[in-house]
């Protein structure tokens, strides 16, 4: 029963394991309240550097620069910030053509009932408009999708999004 309950959430440890498996060197991020435990966990990893930005658009530019030097960055932001980053995604990620996994907190997402938060309502249309493929990750059992996103980003040299649909549970202990 306990195992079943744990499988139903997405543990921050799972995210960090996926980052390590995919040789991530830097997480460029703006922390948000829902992902604070993940942030604390990332800070404890000696193989991982955190680069804090103050506006989401900056994260894509910093990631581009890191990538030029041979590092493997991940962008970790919320869907609200992603939407504000439109031109940076265009100019610094899509046009630059480098592999980038963007982990996006899916604020407002629910599998049950009606989605009332417009942040969630516009998230997938936004990604579709930019022709960015995405994978929804809600629980630990979805974790292999994160590696699929990394593989796809490497193969296509494009950004691929991982939408975290469980911000409000496992990430905020």
């Amino acid at each position, binding site marked *: 029963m306990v195992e079943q309950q744990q499988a139903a959430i997405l543990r921050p440890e799972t995210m960090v394991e996926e980052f390590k498996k995919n040789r991530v060197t830097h997480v460029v991020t703006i922390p948000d309240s829902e992902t604070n435990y993940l942030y604390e966990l990332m800070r404890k990893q000696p193989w991982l550097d955190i680069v804090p930005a103050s506006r989401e658009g900056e994260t894509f530019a910093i990631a581009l620069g*890191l990538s030029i*030097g041979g590092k493997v960055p991940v962008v970790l932001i919320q869907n609200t910030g992603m939407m504000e980053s439109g031109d940076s995604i265009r*100019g610094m990620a899509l*046009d630059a053509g480098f*592999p980038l996994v963007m982990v996006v907190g899916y604020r407002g997402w629910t599998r049950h009932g009606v989605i009332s938060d417009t942040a969630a309502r516009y998230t997938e249309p936004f990604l579709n408009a930019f022709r960015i493929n995405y994978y929804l990750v809600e629980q630990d059992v979805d974790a292999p999708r994160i590696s699929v996103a990394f593989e796809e980003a490497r193969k296509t040299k494009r950004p691929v999004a991982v939408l975290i649909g469980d911000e409000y549970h496992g990430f905020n202990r």
Partner: protein
Amino acid sequence: MLEAAEVFKVFQKHRGDAIVIPTGTSGRQWMNFTTNEKRDLSLGGAMGHTTGAALGVALSLPSEKVVLFDAEGALLMNLGILATIAGMKPQNFYHILLDNECYATTGGQPVPNAQEINYAGIAKEAGYAAAYRFDNLEELERNMDKILNEKGPVFVSIKVIPAIENEPIGMRQRPATRNRAQTIRELQEELGIRVE
């Protein structure tokens, strides 16, 4: 105010092996002075985000000196990047701002508070290791070598004469230059960087 070309002439004497990232209308003139194109990076623009990309380069290549020629209109769009740069403390990062007080590429309209704002002051208070302001060529020449040998991040603000463009974009003459992908590839080859 100085001519951007004079600034580049002074800098070129002290460049050494530094990776140089020019941006903005003033930055375009760097191509007339560089003698080591393989270490010049063109990062394109996206509402002023070249600054962040240059930071990423500096963080990923800590043993290389990275010099960004930034523009004040671009920097104003993302002033928060100064806090990130200061916080990450890249000792190899030299952030030179060519401040022409206007959006030269859109006809020369002034940037907000163009004449009174103190970018070096903002950078210093954000936490840069050092920050300087120059409006005099001799003074710049006297200090350039010392500045480029300090531990970064260092910020240098220089007032330059704008090269205002006022023709419709489609009618503007642009000399043939290497594109972003080419500059990235050539720098990576030069440094032996292999990207998956």
